């Protein structure tokens, strides 16, 4: 689908209108509920953010060493990002390798078959239960999750390359290594990028969810403390901040790979 500049501007404007509408709806709902303890309006949440983003002495009495958003964000996103990097790198290598080498396929198949693309989302929290709530356990969890989803998609993307394309490359004299580099890899790229983005968003969500189970730092930890205090506004402020950071990262990933995907139009 072709998009002209004016259409793109319209898309941005309408997107902004959507957020304005969400804001208005939320404001209206909060007005209707008329209880900031149950449903604080967006301005209340924003105020919470301004008040506590830099830190909150109150939390420090509860044993939170660093209560500012920045440090906890860095911890949560950093851990999730590290797991994502390791897991995705291994996943791409294993998935593409398993599509080309039978022995590798035989080794990875049991893991990928059992955990699949979707079941791993279910199994991941269970894994956490077993791995424990320490930082290494959570890193392992995110890494394993990213590994499985990325490997499954990378493998099927490499296998879905139309045979004629690879045969064509072979009749041009490209050997197996050259075909992998020049044909298999670029053909699988769009699917791999899509799953990398999904894995990043879900990885952050998994990491934060895992942090509810009681580590010392992380956005999830702050959320669970605020929930115990019954502070809805602060829970929303923390969640939305983390969501916005995830959107930012996603946009960065998308922008970084855009040139490599331009051929798709």
């Amino acid at each position, binding site marked *: 689908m072709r998009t002209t500049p004016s259409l793109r501007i319209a898309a941005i404007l309408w997107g902004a209108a959507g957020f304005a509408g969400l804001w208005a709806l939320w404001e209206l709902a909060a007005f209707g509920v008329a209880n900031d303890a149950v449903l604080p309006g967006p301005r209340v949440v924003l105020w919470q953010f301004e008040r506590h983003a830099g830190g909150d002495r109150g939390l420090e009495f509860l044993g939170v060493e660093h209560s500012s958003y920045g440090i906890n964000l860095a911890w949560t996103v950093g851990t999730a990002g590290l797991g994502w990097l390791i897991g995705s790198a291994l996943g791409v290598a294993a998935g593409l390798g398993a599509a080309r080498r039978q022995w590798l396929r035989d080794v990875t198949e049991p893991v990928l078959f059992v955990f699949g693309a979707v079941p791993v989302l279910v199994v991941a929290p269970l894994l956490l239960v077993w791995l424990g709530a320490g930082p290494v356990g959570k890193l392992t969890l995110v890494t394993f999750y990213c590994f499985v989803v990325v490997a499954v998609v990378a493998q099927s993307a490499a296998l879905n390359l139309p045979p004629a394309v690879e045969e064509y490359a072979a*009749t*041009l*004299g490209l050997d197996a290594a*050259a075909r992998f580099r020049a044909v298999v890899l*670029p053909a699988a790229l769009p699917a791999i990028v899509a799953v990398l983005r999904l894995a990043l968003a879900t990885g952050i969500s998994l990491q934060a969810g895992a942090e509810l189970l009681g580590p010392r730092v992380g956005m999830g930890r702050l959320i669970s403390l605020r929930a115990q205090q019954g502070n809805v506004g602060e829970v929303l402020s923390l969640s939305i901040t983390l969501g916005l950071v995830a959107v930012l990262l996603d946009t960065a990933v998308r922008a970084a790979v855009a040139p490599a995907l331009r051929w798709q*139009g």
Partner: protein
Amino acid sequence: MSRPTGLEVRSLTVTYGSGPKAVTPLHDLDLDVPRGQFLCVLGPSGQGKSTLLRCLAGLLAPTAGTITALGEPVTGPSATRGMVFQQDAIPGWLRVADNVALGPRNRRLPESQWRPRVDHFVEAVGLRGRERAWPRELSGGMRKRVAVAAVFANDPDILLMDEPFASLDHLTRQGLHRTLLTLWQETGKTIVFVTHDVDEALALADRVVVIAGGGVRADAVVPFPRPRTDDLRMDATANALRTNLLHHLGV
């Protein structure tokens, strides 16, 4: 001048599957293609034309028999035998010029060696000015031109073409015929061109073989001088040849 053999096919048999479901489209087929010849392989659908071509390309191992190309036994795909496929096989992620350079670049030949050839064949197939276009931005006929330029730029000795223009409309196809003949005359490559269209074969070939029932059913020289025009449809000799070929095709 002696013409050394380009392709030598001896007792070629291909069987797909086994047991009661086995299919044997080619059985004990013999064929010689002299170097530099433009051969058209005609045959009804499902009679093993693609199978033969895939064997010649080294993409499919024969069940029995041997294939020799330029004196060497064929045991796998090679840059000396280029192929143009019926379906779109050119990678969509390479711009036109990069697509044409796909073979030599990835065989890691020095750029100085292939760059002029790539430019030349991009120009020769009429894609000058579209070098930076993506395949999706091109018409079906233009994508075929990319595929043709790409094999020529890779400089194989033998070109294998499997109904390459079957999906194109008449006018586009004629344009591609002219381009292909020009390139053939310029480079003197051996071409094996598969088609199920008698008129396409008569317009292009030095020689036509009909494949049916597992082997070569007819083998005819096409004596008309080039350039051949649509007037060929009125020519009595041409009509006799056409009728004869159609007869062998079972029409």
